[in-house]
């Protein structure tokens, strides 16, 4: 791809970003000084949208999500929530401003019960617990049935429900999911994708990072393909799922069948 088409695509992409609930522009970020994982990534999510981020290992998917949530230092670029600059703000501030974040690992308090885990989700505003608990258990009836069970005894699929439920307790305007299907069996992976879709249909904007690229592209409205900390491709889920260039990114040039 030449420089000009790349910057044209960049402008075109941002032209649709007006009114976005969350947007990131030209993010340069990394864990160590001088070592950048993100090298100018862009992203936006419109209200009610379900946005997927895919890409090969080490592309910077999780780092991008963490940068949106203030867990990775952003060196350059900006993150805006409903127009307000929130770059590098603390995670707890971002939660009260309306971002929910579900980490990939260690995402429940194992010694607390399901109910207590969900309570932790709204410790900044405990009065809302009853109402939000109802919302979450409508989405995940299983959590209501087992509210007194300790999270440490739950299987991976159930923990993922607890973690997603907890992030929904503050009624976020945008939910960030980091590889929610990782480590689950195929059936439970599908279940997570259906649940994510349901959360989105209930009115929550969602940005999800996924390793199961095909499933992710099937449920999301729009997808981003990252490579080496940059946007490689973006488009509707369908168009990306059928794009041989995406396969090539994952498997190298040999991923394409020889003609």
């Amino acid at each position, binding site marked *: 791809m030449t420089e000009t088409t790349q910057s044209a695509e960049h402008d075109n992409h941002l032209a649709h970003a007006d009114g976005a609930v969350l947007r990131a522009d030209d993010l340069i970020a990394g864990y160590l000084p001088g070592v950048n994982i993100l090298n100018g990534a862009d992203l936006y999510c419109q209200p009610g949208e379900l946005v997927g981020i895919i890409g090969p290992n*080490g592309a910077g998917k999780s780092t991008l999500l963490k940068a949106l949530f203030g867990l990775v230092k952003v060196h350059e670029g900006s993150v805006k929530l409903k127009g307000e600059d929130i770059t590098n703000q603390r995670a707890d501030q971002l939660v009260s401003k309306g971002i929910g974040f579900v980490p990939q690992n260690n995402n429940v308090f194992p010694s607390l019960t399901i109910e207590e885990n969900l309570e932790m989700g709204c410790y900044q505003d405990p009065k809302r617990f009853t109402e939000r608990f109802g919302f979450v258990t409508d989405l995940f009836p299983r959590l209501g049935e087992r509210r007194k069970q300790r999270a440490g005894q*739950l*299987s991976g699929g159930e923990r993922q429900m607890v973690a997603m439920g907890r992030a929904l307790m503050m009624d976020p305007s945008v939910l960030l999911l980091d590889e929610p299907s990782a480590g689950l069996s195929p059936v439970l992976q599908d279940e997570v994708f*259906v649940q994510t879709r349901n959360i989105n249909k209930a009115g929550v904007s969602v940005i999800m990072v996924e390793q199961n690229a095909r499933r992710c592209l*099937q449920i999301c409205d729009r997808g981003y393909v990252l490579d080496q900390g940059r946007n490689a491709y973006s488009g509707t889920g369908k168009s990306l799922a059928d794009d041989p260039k995406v396969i090539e990114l994952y498997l*190298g040039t040999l*991923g394409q069948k020889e003609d």
Partner: protein
Amino acid sequence: MAADLSAARAALEGVPSEPGVPKPDPIVKGDNITRTFGGLKAVDVEHIEIQRGVITALIGPNGAGKTTLFNLLTGFDEPDDGTWAFNGTALGKVPAYKVARLGMVRTFQLTKVLSKLTVIENMRLGAKGQRGEKFLSAAFKSLWGAQEKANTDRADALLERFKLDAKREDFAGSLSGGQRKLLEMARALMVDPELIMLDEPMAGVNPALKQSLLGHVKSLRDEGRTVLFVEHDMDMVRDISDWVIVMAQGQIVAEGTPQSVMADQRVIDAYLGAHHDSDITEIDIADLEKAAEAELDEGTKP
């Protein structure tokens, strides 16, 4: 040696690209190896063979079980079930240090160099059968001095080969990520292994060092050793491997030459997610809920 090498590679030519396919001259053979963590089957390998004298790559998406299989084969973890042998010697329940002495040595994705020891001290630790470690003989240098000297000479030669000789007296903790990878590889060679297993040798290595690291991996094969490595960098896999084994969800889903494997539909599915035949927006949600519910109930039984 060169003749041996081409013979080893040529031997793979007739081998069909099938998961668990038998090889003409396997150095490692494993059967029915399983390892579960909680309800998750991390490794479930029916049959695996590693051909002697070539570079075999073990690839697969995140969580496929590659590193777990490495841990099992080298005695760093115990399987639920299964048998495997190195050069015909069964290795079930054999501790890691004995596996290494038998000639099967591994490195780690997150390097395990001893940061408060110098580079040369790290290297000396890699040698086996050190007489000075015995309680009584430790007091008499005459008993182990010559061996220590031989080990040091060997270590120095290896440091030179891996271009770490300038760092000989530096603390290992002061090395860069790539240099640590080199040090681990050099230390592994102190026992003169037949099989060297590298866990993500390219992870965290800067591009400038990658090329030389590639050269070093090839040189291991060219001097007659067998190399098995886990890697995510597909360019590296294509560049240097003679054979590729692909894992997904704990199982071997494909095998073959780099060319055949990377055009294999099963591999593309493994990386991009399976179920490509069905669209999740079209499947029966009620059926899915029932299946998921059943799996979750299974998982929570005491």
